[in-house]
């Protein structure tokens, strides 16, 4: 089996379509392991992984930890509040101290964009970016693509509308790069204040009208909206956001019949997406969470160059 010829996974901007294909194919066989009664393979036995989370996370952290367990890797998890970040130790010192204990791969979530690049330059261990500031969240992008690929059988020529706070979203950035590399058409919808400056650099079209944006769409992906964006004056209120940009059944009538509804979670029900839609048969929100484990198993396998079973 092939492996990835790279030390780190920092973002989908720098990953090729060929590599993405390899990751998705590998994730498919990993998902098969997850469906077994005994979900454990010895592939990464004796390999050590550090989960370093400087920001709170439920599903990403659980998903990485489960992936490590299913692959028989040894792992330790360090969370933000208990970490040395608050003690004033530098990131470099923290990770070098743990690395010397035998860590071969570091999974890191961090509030500052580029921190995974910084870490990767300073350690020999592989680094997987589990979300850095507003920059990228490559494993989320990959699991979203995997979910769509499983449901639709392809990514090429699909139309995907991403709705919401593109500007501050690392999930959006990873999806914009990844999906377009795989031949999908991506459009973005939301208030102009929540669009990144010079949006054209991402090669996508911006709409302010959801109904128009989802015309013939195969997928609608709503993003989480953070309350602090309203507090910093980017839009007037959560209820106004819901009224103008919330994804509801009435707004998606011009999309394809087999439209998929996605959300990276956690959902603000009734704000980004109506409860009715989130729980509808079209919604693949839970499948996304399941895909996450498969994708992360695949990445650990490909990066640590697992020995064949």
């Amino acid at each position, binding site marked *: 089996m092939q492996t990835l010829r790279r030390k780190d996974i920092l973002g989908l901007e720098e990953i090729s379509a060929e590599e993405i294909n390899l990751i998705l194919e590998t994730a498919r066989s990993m998902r098969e392991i997850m469906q077994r009664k005994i979900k454990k393979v010895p592939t990464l036995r004796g390999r050590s992984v550090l989960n370093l989370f400087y920001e709170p996370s439920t599903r990403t952290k659980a998903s990485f930890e489960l992936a490590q367990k299913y692959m028989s890797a040894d792992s330790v998890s360090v969370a933000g509040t208990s970490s040395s970040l608050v003690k004033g130790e530098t990131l470099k010192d923290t990770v070098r101290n743990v690395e010397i204990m035998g860590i071969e791969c570091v999974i890191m979530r961090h509030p500052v*964009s580029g921190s995974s690049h910084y870490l990767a330059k300073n350690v020999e261990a592989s680094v997987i970016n589990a979300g850095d500031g507003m*920059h990228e969240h490559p494993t989320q992008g990959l699991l979203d693509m995997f979910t769509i690929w499983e449901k639709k059988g392809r990514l090429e020529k699909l139309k995907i509308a991403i709705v919401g706070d593109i500007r501050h979203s690392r999930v959006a950035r990873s999806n914009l790069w990844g999906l377009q590399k795989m031949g999908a058409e991506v459009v973005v919808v939301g208030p102009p204040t929540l669009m990144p*400056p010079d949006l054209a650099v991402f090669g996508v079209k911006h709409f302010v009208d959801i109904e128009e944006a989802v015309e013939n769409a195969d997928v609608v992906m709503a993003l989480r909206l953070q309350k602090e964006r309203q507090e910093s004056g980017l839009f007037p209120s959560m209820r106004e956001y819901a009224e103008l940009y919330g994804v509801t059944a009435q707004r998606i009538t011009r999309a394809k019949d087999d439209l998929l509804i996605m959300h990276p979670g956690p959902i603000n029900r009734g704000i980004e997406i109506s409860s009715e839609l989130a729980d509808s048969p079209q919604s693949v929100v839970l499948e996304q969470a399941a895909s996450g484990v498969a994708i992360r198993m695949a990445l650990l396998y490909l990066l640590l160059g697992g020995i064949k079973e």
Partner: protein
Amino acid sequence: MKPIFITGGRIIDPASNFDDNADILINEGIVEKVEKGLKPPSDAEVIDAAGLVVTPGLIDIHVHLRDPGQEYKEDIKSGTRAAAAGGFTAVAVMANTEPVGDDPSMIHYTYEKAAGEAARVYPLGALTKGLEGKEMAELGRMKNAGAVGFSDDGRPVVNGSIMRNALHYASGINAPVIAHEEDPYLAAGGVMHEGAVSSVLGLKGMPSAAEEAMLARDLLILKLTGGHLHIAHVSTAGSVELVREAKAEGLNVTAEVTPHHLLLTDRLVKNSGYNTNTKVNPPLRTELDRQALWAGLLDDTIDAIASDHAPHHPDDKDVEYDFAPFGIAGLETTLPLMLDEVASGRIKKFTLPLLVKKLTSAPARILNLPGGTIKAGSPADLTIIDLKREFIINPETWYSKSRNTPFTGKRLTGAPVYTIVDGLIKMKEGVVSE
């Protein structure tokens, strides 16, 4: 004090429009003679400058020496040695020290500590008390103590009325006000230029408008008050245009630009993989801005080149991008970087005499400093340059305590070989005297 005799060099003195081979005799800290075919006195130290260029001592009017308060980053001793190593005979230093240089005692401190060091140090006073932008500092008392200008550099003066009063008042004591143009609300939280690159990197941007809006305001205030306003580190195409129009209108405004804004763009933040040595305020802008800065420098909209030497300890920069302080150290790189632009011919019309003007007579005129020229009777501050010298930027060899430059490893052509301050050789062949 031994006389110094510099023979056979090409002397470039933009202040007197002189560009020819001649000999220079220096005695007791003063340029005694500048003539062809002079004979050296028997006791003189002779410098053979054949094939070299002799210029007035270079003056850097925008420097942070962190002294007092942050001497682990830089101090007056290390900073003046860095200046001499870089060919500068004089630096003007900003008041954002700890405590802030907003009092005559701080002006005295700087002069006393710099006495006898490797370069002259001219203190700039704070424009407002504590750099807080609320109350005017004692500009007149600081001027009497020797402050050469006033600035809250690093921080904008947010309140327009305070800027108005400070400019108006400073006009009465014939002192320039130096403005760091930035609307702090528009730039809030930004760590790089706002644009396509910041969007891709997910870093918070500072829009060009943050600089231009504040600059436009200050130019309008200047029209109201008169006085001399100097614009620090102009970085955008829009700012160049605003200064150009203001000069055309006859306003007493001058401007400076840094080598990093002339040579680098925001793309480097990405291409360097978030290297924190690219983090500087104002931020590295776009290629369009960079081109406009060159055009402004060439047509004299921008009067001078200044380094904005902002030294930081390596540990301060060895952190995540958002956590790193702003600043690039420039005293030991500015001249070689600019000489290389002349040598390469990349910028048409950027000639050696023009470069010398931007580093000598122009900055001297902005701050009304002595020096900036070579003529009989002027202070013996001189820089001797080898235009063909190969120079590689290597911060490990710096006299500065800092290492923060995005130019590490750059191979350049042209470097200073002598720095003479007050008739004393402070730097010879890159080595600063003890």
